[in-house]
């Protein structure tokens, strides 16, 4: 087990290195000049030259990469070309908001997707199943952008049930920043009202971000459950006279959990790196917004920082999922 873990951690490092390499060289072949993007139309020639020198853009690509990797090994992600701020500071500022939103979306996806999938499997081809399948189709096919604006318009604009974009009411006073998670920071500040407000602000964007995942999860759960329910051991269990609920909980659900777990890991990873549109519509200050702005202004160190973080998160989640397999299914052993 320990040897396996070490091997996998090496693999994570390799993946992350691959990400830096690919991103860096893509940024080199893109026909675009970060100096002009940062300084704009009115910049003088000497300003552009000075900018290139200061940011090492005047050196050949392989030297720039070596410098970047050298800094990276010392834990330095470099400086944003656009804001001149250390990229690490930016990531620390924006990543918690994305994690908070993604976890909420993840939770919503599980709370909706799994039960709906189970119900659908148990009522195969009857009304509940058909309804779930249609909803799952809609949920999976509705573009996030459209859904976001629609929900905002209806539930905030027309009905007034939910607050507008942002993490807090515009008139409320934000808590001092400790963790960057608004829900935690409000609690740490003993500000219960603002805590409730922050939870309330989390719901709509989390539903929007989680809807496609919920749909996928419902379909996956339904499929996995149907597969398991047709197995011999389920028939045997039923034949033994086990109660239906017991068969589903003890025999079916546990065996259907493995494929679902695989999907969950992938989902969390994609939620963390795929919140760009939701963050834009709901004015959520996360890394999705950050990377969009950075990419459009050719701020390569910032883009590198985000891809690195996303790659690392993905690899670690996958590792965690694999370790969970062994926990859930005693037949799986790593060595």
């Amino acid at each position, binding site marked *: 087990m320990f040897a396996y873990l070490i091997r996998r951690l090496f693999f994570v490092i390799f993946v992350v290195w691959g990400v830096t390499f690919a991103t860096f060289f893509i940024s080199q072949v893109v026909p*675009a000049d970060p100096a002009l993007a940062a300084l704009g139309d009115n910049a003088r020639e000497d300003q552009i030259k000075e900018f290139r020198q200061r940011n090492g853009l005047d050196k050949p690509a392989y030297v720039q990469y070596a410098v970047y990797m050298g800094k990276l090994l010392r834990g330095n992600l470099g400086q944003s070309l656009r804001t001149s*701020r250390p990229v690490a500071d930016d990531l620390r500022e924006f990543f918690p908001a994305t994690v908070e939103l993604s976890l909420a979306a993840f939770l919503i996806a599980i709370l909706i997707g799994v039960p709906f999938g189970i119900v659908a499997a148990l009522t195969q081809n009857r009304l509940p199943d058909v309804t779930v399948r249609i909803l799952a189709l809609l949920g999976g096919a509705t573009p996030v952008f459209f859904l976001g604006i629609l929900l905002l318009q209806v539930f905030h604009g027309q009905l007034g049930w939910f*607050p507008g974009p*942002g993490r807090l009411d515009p*008139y*409320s006073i934000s808590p001092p920043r400790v963790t960057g998670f608004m829900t935690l920071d409000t609690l740490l500040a003993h500000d219960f009202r603002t805590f*409730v407000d922050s939870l309330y602000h989390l719901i709509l964007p989390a539903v929007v971000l989680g809807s496609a995942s919920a749909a996928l999860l419902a379909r996956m759960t339904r499929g996995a459950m149907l597969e398991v329910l047709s197995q011999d051991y389920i028939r045997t269990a039923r034949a033994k006279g086990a109660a239906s609920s017991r068969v589903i909980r003890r025999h079916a659900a546990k065996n259907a959990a493995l494929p679902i777990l695989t999907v969950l890991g992938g989902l969390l990873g994609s939620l963390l790196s795929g919140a760009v549109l939701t963050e*834009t519509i709901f004015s959520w200050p996360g890394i999705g917004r*950050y990377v969009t702005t950075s990419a459009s202004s050719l701020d390569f160190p910032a883009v590198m920082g985000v891809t690195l973080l996303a790659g690392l998160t993905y690899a670690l989640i996958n590792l965690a999922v694999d370790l969970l397999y062994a926990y859930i299914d005693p037949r799986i052993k790593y060595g």
Partner: protein
Amino acid sequence: MKLIKALGMVAALSAGLAIAQDRTSTLIYGGDWTDLITADPQVSYEFTGGLVADNLYETLVKFEGTDLSTLKPSLAEKWNVQNTAQGWLVTFNLRKGSKFSTGREVTAKDVVYSFDRAIQIKGPSSFLFTDVANIKVGSTKALDNYTVQVTLPKTASPAAFLNLLTFNIGGIVDSEEVKSHEQSGDFGKAWLTDHSAGSGPFMLNRWDRNAQVVLTANPNARLQPKLKQVILRYLPESQAQRVALESGEIDIAENLTPEMLKAFSSNPKFKVYKSDNLRLRYIGMNSKEGSPFANPKVREAVRYAINQDEIISGLLLGNATKIQTIIPKGLFGYNPAMYYSYDPARAKKLLAEAGVPNGFEFELLTATASCDFVPCGDLAAKIQADLAKVGLKANIKQIQNSEVLKAYRAQQAQMVLVAWSPDFPDPDGNATPMSDYNAKSLAYRNVWNNPTAAKLAQQAALETNPTKRGALYKLLTELVLKDGPYDILYQPAQNTTFSTKVEGYVRNGQNQVRFENISKQP
């Protein structure tokens, strides 16, 4: 669902109680503020940075309302310009008793520090001091606590210098406070990025990047604002701005689309405020020997061939001002005359006179971004269609904006569709770049070398008599219009939409909004 509703009620009630009393003294301004990089007046060169810094810092002189041609006193109550053998001597008499948010009095040494800082910090707008005003560290001197003198060389325009002082780079910082926050010779740049030390009506309370910028009233300010707090709330998506404005979550929306503006203008609860941006959207034509646009008659034909009115009313839904000369509306020297009208027959005749009766094929370069309110590709397609009617075949090439600039700056573009904003609110901000080849700016990029135009631009820049200066600009704008490498398409409008509860919102052509004049009704 019940739980959600209950939660919602609790949140709404509790939030409502806590903030009810603050609603009329807090202004929530929603917009895409993503361009904000710093609130440092000597570093910021972007729109939002300027918007923030203008309200945190005072300048020596300023413009009031929408007028960008009459300088008004601000920290300086008087000033004068003398023409001496050493150059222009510009003397400012500071008002006594102006205070920074720190409580210290604004004195001449703060002005010297701020001006020297603008030069030494080598920020994106430092060239305004070093290249336009041509001043160095040491050019600004404190004669006593309340008198400052700046020496400009003969070659610099004192009018342009005074005008550029209204820009945020001329904001006066509390030198003692900033010095106490210097880190390894950065002139306090890191600290001033998200702190303030000015005498403006507001102070920077907090900046949660990509979420909000909170400005609170400066208790020591000479100009006391009507509001206690202004919050710039980041709402990058215009649909979200629309919904938030309708629901009352924000009071002002910065970036609505022309269709939304149309809907809001007919809604009595809202007001759409139009101001003139100083930007000009134009076509640049490469006049290099051998280029199809080398002949002035061809360039003139292009101007007759493009239908400005259709672009403004059809594509932009009226959100632009028609203009044909190089100095935008809002600046001194603006020439509102319309010298040519849409006339494809005349364009064809001119092309025949130029020896290309059957037209020719060329590349029209533009950015993949948005051109004011429409995608640049749409605007380019309209131009392509108009030009095709007179036999000119434009092949549109859309690339990343920085690549358009790269080709353009290297004189490599045949025809470009781009925009220009003056660096400072003075006609010279357009006249020299667009007329003087040696300024290595727009005239250079289009390979248009006209010594008469260059000379007129220089003369006009240095002229201190307004009547004479105005006459020179009329001559220059007419010359560039007739012979120059540009077809000016329009000047985009700047629209801001707000609830009718908001009073006193005024925005000038350089996008300055003075929050101290704004109030909010219950």
